[in-house]
């Protein structure tokens, strides 16, 4: 009896220990992972070894001249930097790139794009009556920016830890699909539309099989918008073939899930 009990206790203890050590959701707060942040920094420096390096060099030299600061202070800009590698080689996309970055920092603020023709509006921004409002807005923007940066850092840490795709690899893939996906602009922005597509890939990045994970929703009555979004997502995947996948680690990415969510774009 006691033997059995002892055995059971030992077994359970081992199981609990294993669970704590291996299950991703049992991980501690991501702040406890500074070494992973530094790994991300190395990858960013890899990215800067491209045609526009002279600019980047100046920045790096400046940074070097300053006293070396805590790693985490450099981490947030990684969200901006990661947009660059895929877009720099395409000169036509330079302007778009800037816009996209702005949107990312403050998704609700698209006014600059729309007001492009109006000089008056720019002047109006300096209107004294609105200064107070602007200060408040600035605070909100800063908070939003911080939020987005935080989110990005956390998700990237999680992703690289859990899945094995590095930030740059994930970004390369994401940027490629951004370019292929024509978002159907007539979709309602206040409905939660998320299309999850599971892909089986070949080593060269071509798609062996694509499967919509909630495909039963496609033909349900009243799900017209979901169907249109799903079709546009599938079109994007087919157009993008072969996908930009890492040269190594095929076992990790041979199955891939893409979550298409246009809400942010549709809200403008």
């Amino acid at each position, binding site marked *: 009896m006691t033997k059995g009990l002892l055995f059971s206790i030992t077994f359970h203890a081992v199981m609990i220990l294993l669970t704590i050590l291996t299950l991703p959701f049992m991980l501690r707060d991501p702040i406890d992972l500074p070494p992973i942040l530094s790994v991300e920094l190395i990858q960013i420096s890899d990215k800067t070894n491209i045609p526009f390096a002279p600019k980047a060099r100046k920045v790096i030299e400046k940074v070097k001249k300053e006293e070396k600061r805590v790693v985490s202070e450099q981490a947030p800009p990684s969200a901006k930097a990661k947009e660059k590698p895929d877009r720099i080689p395409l000169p036509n996309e330079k302007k778009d790139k800037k816009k996209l970055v702005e949107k990312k920092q403050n998704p609700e603020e698209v006014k600059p794009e729309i007001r492009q023709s109006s000089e*008056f509006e720019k002047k109006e921004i300096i209107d004294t009556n609105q200064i107070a409002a602007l200060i408040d807005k600035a605070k909100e923007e800063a908070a939003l920016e911080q939020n987005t940066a935080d989110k990005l850092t956390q998700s990237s840490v999680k992703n690289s830890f*859990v899945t094995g795709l590095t930030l740059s690899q994930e970004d390369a893939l994401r940027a490629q699909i951004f370019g292929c996906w*024509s978002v159907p602009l*007539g979709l309602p922005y206040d409905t939660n539309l998320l299309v999850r597509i599971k892909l089986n890939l070949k080593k060269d990045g071509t798609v062996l099989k694509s499967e919509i994970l909630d495909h039963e929703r496609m033909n349900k009555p009243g799900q017209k918008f979901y169907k249109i979004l799903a079709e546009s997502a599938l079109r994007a995947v087919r157009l993008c073939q072969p996908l930009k996948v890492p040269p190594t680690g095929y076992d990790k990415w041979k199955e*891939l*899930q893409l979550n298409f969510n246009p809400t942010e774009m549709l809200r403008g």
Partner: protein
Amino acid sequence: MKIFFFIFFFIFFQFNAANSLIKVDITRGNLDPLPIAVSPLHVDPNSQSLKDLKIKGLGDKISEIIENNFKGTGLFNPLPKDAFVQNPDIAHLKPRFEDWRLIKAQALVTGKILVKDDKLKIEFRLWDLTASKEIMALAFTTTPSNWRRVAHIISDKIYERLTGEDGYFDTRIIYVSETGPKNRRVKKLGIMDQDGANTKYLTLGNELVLTPRFNPTNQLVTYLSYFRNLPRVYLLDIETGVQEVVGNFPGMTFAPRFSPDGKKIIMSFAKDGNSDIYTMDIETRVVERITEHSSIDTSPSYSPDGKYICFNSDRSGVQQIYVMKSDGTNVKRITFGSGLYGTPVWSPRGDLIAFTKVRKGRFYIGVMRADGSGERLLTENFYQEAPSWSPNGRVLVFYRETKSGANGEGFSAKLWSIDITGYNERKLSTETDASDPSWSSLLSK
């Protein structure tokens, strides 16, 4: 016991492996127009010939109308026909998808026309070229003179299938047609298809006409004209041509508009320098006063659910936009920016209000949310006003006047459209100068 351990470990690591599926969030895409190939519709050689209509070139004409409609949206990029790789008749049966993909097309429209027993039958198919499959096929039978409308209906169906939003091509625009020198303008009511075709005039031009508006069934039009030298709101039946003065008001009535159910007309009534908003039931002729204020309240427009009304008023000292419940209670000011705000119009989708803004002598057309937040100025010019929504709430039509010399030379008034993103501004083609446009709802709904 060992086996038990092994099984447990196996299940455990399997679970972990499943959990490690790479997930990538795609939250952005491009806004480039979708490349679409509209093949000329194939005319069946067995078609009978008609007196008034050349059947031979009809397939090309219909595909041109569809292409023009798409071009105007800014969401599609119709590809040039010289690049097409397959004859219309074969493409309609089974396109060679890989060849069409070579010219970078993502969607393909094919069709067939047959005239038999004096009836015109038009069928079309929409192909998804990346998925190599047909995604839509429809056929219409009608009288041959209706061929333009069928082209617009096909455009609407394709637009809806690819964007998820209702189209706006099978619609009409009513406007004030203007001719003659600036100080002696002749103004008539004109009506045309949204692409500028089929223009007709509904009044003779003896009296000045202003602000025509469709009712929801597009059968009636309400507008302002002069009755015994006094501006009064009129009601006109487009089919019968019968017109009548609305209500027996002891003063001037103006800025009329229908309620969303089409049962009431909402308008301003001015007396002794004060104007307030009134409604009149078209059936019972019962008049109801909605606002009661010493300021000038005008340009009322219902929300699509009929529960709210937006209007402009100078009760704060400057002309601004207000929203109230449809019974006149709970009046709230929604604009606080510098300048004057006027002609508010509620979007058919209910989410936005379009308006004209005047600031420092310049005119802007803009949109904002129904609570006044998120103001976006879409276009700025010397003089422009009177926005009217397309039935799907994506495009605005308005009119723009040019600066004229001392004797009115160089003056012109034209209709323009712009979509709510502020892009894709374009001039609409009208036979004469035009102002005060109003967009109908979809004719085929």
